[in-house]
């Protein structure tokens, strides 16, 4: 549905641009994240949300006020926020006696909740507790997942996919090699997920590729997997559907041999070889007298056959 296909058309160009930004497209916008505090969020959880917002700037929205909702019981409030701010990723922090330092991370499809995973924060070291220089905001991080647990269960697989979606940033075609600033490292071990972020220091090595040294920079969290609300298989399949236009087109009729020469096949129509254009040799041209005798021979042959 185009912006102009509504019953009430937008009256200004600005309104039209606003609507066009939000409508479904073939290649989508960068996903925005909204960071929400629950009714009883404590200092730890608030600081976690602030740090994640710093990592996700400018593709994130941090809500300052507390919102009294429970994501696992009622998702309408989250869906309303998502529709208003056009955010498809969310992180909800809360704290109570049964679930201390709780963080719900999730994503939306068509403004409805697709996946939600609840994580408990066991240990947290904030950005401001580690005193060193940080990298500029908006840099694309390197993501590393370690541990074979990430492929064991469906929960962990979805968690990995969700974390990639959350932290990956804009998809770019080129990247400046000196601009690779920081790396987010997730390790799954003994039922816990260790989230660490390090600043990248490129040191000289003998060859072109530099040697890497790491310096602890950013927030570090020890997370425990609590409840999950994963999408059903068919909804997940529907959300993964890729448009045909974006599928890579196979180039036909091209083949290469071992030397690197490219071969292709040209298909020609049937040619009349007698009417072929060749080089004209003036000496071989028929003289008028000869042409006349040839015609007479042809005529006599035709009469004889009939």
């Amino acid at each position, binding site marked *: 549905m185009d912006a102009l296909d509504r019953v009430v058309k937008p009256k200004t160009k600005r309104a039209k641009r606003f609507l066009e930004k939000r409508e479904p497209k073939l290649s989508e916008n960068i996903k925005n994240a909204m960071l929400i505090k629950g009714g009883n969020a404590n200092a730890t959880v608030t600081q976690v949300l602030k740090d994640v917002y710093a990592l996700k700037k400018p593709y994130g929205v941090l809500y300052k006020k507390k919102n009294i909702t429970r994501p696992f019981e009622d998702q309408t409030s989250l869906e309303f926020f998502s529709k208003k701010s056009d955010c498809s990723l969310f992180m909800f922090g809360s704290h109570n006696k049964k679930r201390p330092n709780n963080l719900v991370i999730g994503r939306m499809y068509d403004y409805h909740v697709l996946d939600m995973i609840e994580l408990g924060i066991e240990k947290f070291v904030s950005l401001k507790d580690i005193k060193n220089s940080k990298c500029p905001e908006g840099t*694309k991080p390197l993501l590393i997942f370690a*541990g074979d647990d990430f492929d064991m269960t469906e929960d962990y697989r979805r968690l990995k996919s969700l974390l990639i979606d959350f932290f990956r940033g804009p998809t770019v075609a080129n990247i400046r090699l000196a601009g*690779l600033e920081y790396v987010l490292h997730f390790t799954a071990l003994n039922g816990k997920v260790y989230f660490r972020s390090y600043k990248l220091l490129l040191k000289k090595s003998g060859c072109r590729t*530099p040697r890497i040294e790491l310096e602890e920079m950013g927030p570090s969290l020890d997370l425990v997997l609590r409840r999950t609300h994963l999408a059903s298989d068919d909804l997940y399949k529907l*959300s993964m559907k890729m448009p045909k236009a974006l599928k890579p087109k196979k180039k036909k009729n091209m083949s290469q041999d071992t030397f690197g020469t490219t071969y292709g096949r040209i298909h020609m129509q049937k040619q009349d070889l007698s009417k072929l254009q060749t080089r004209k040799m003036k000496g071989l041209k028929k003289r008028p007298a000869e042409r006349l005798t040839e015609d007479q021979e042809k005529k006599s042959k035709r009469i004889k056959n009939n």
Partner: protein
Amino acid sequence: MEGPSVEELLAKAEQDEVEKLQRITVHKELELEFDLGNLLASDRNAPTALRQAGPAPEAELRALARDNTQLLVNQLWQLPTERVEEAVVARLPEPTTRLPREKPLPKPRPLTRWQQFARLKGIRPKKKTSLVWDEVSGQWRRRWGYKRARDDTKEWLIEVPDGADPLQDQFAKRVQAKKERVAKNELNRLRNLARAHRTQLPSAAGMRPAGHQTKEELRRAVQVAKLSTASAGRFQERLPKERAPRGSGRKRKFQPLFGDFAAERKSQLELLRVLNSKKPKLDVTRATNKQMREEDQEEAARRRRMGQKGKRKGGPPSQGGKRKGRLGGQTQSRPPGAGSRRKGGQHRAGGRRK
């Protein structure tokens, strides 16, 4: 002294290479999986060193991270590079990890009436200039829109044409014609939208003035016109002899506050009895009326379909369309009293009426 042999030279060169790469090589049992489009690496090796470490495995985590990052950076430095404004830039491949979309795929829109016609006839849009020379103002103006080149509503002098009434306002006539054109355009746009969504526009059958309309039809047209205001007809006055419309408004009927005490007591007790009973109540009247209504609707639909099929073989299609509209109108505007005149049984409980 003999010169160094070829094998020795080769061995020395290899050793030098290995030394050079020593700083950046990392040994892993299982190779990592890379998705360079997302700057992503997945390490499938079991973290044995970490398991042996104590509760705060910071140093081990950092060592593991360093190794994995070194491998990822090695891969990234293999990518083809180019120079963009004094910076060395690597070209990333397409991301291979499939992630869910945030919105559903855009649906292709069906063609509008004009687009269908143009496709049939092979008409292609002609490329036009965006600005047109305007003689009147002596400048280049846009072809359409605000302050356009030839705006006939903005002329200061209009000659009265030969056959026209001299007392008619020609300026008002032009403004009126423009308003009609805009309204027609909007109607066509809404019709195209309705066709795209396969819904029907609210039908305006019988609302347009034709010379031969009955009193009833005119009355209905007046009612609909009254309702088509911004406040849905709430502030429209009625003419002195105009009848109140029948069948409109919500039906609410209340019992008087102090009335028949015996009847009130009986109805309350009946209500309590119904609430406490386990069996569901069946209102025979309502059930039979519902059944009859459904049968009538099916009958009407069947008749309509037969009528359309018969008419399609012979006769113009417009007649079939009109007939459909009429039948549809008739089934809807049947008086409500007709359905409930038949009562199945005398089962009326708790003061509930249909």
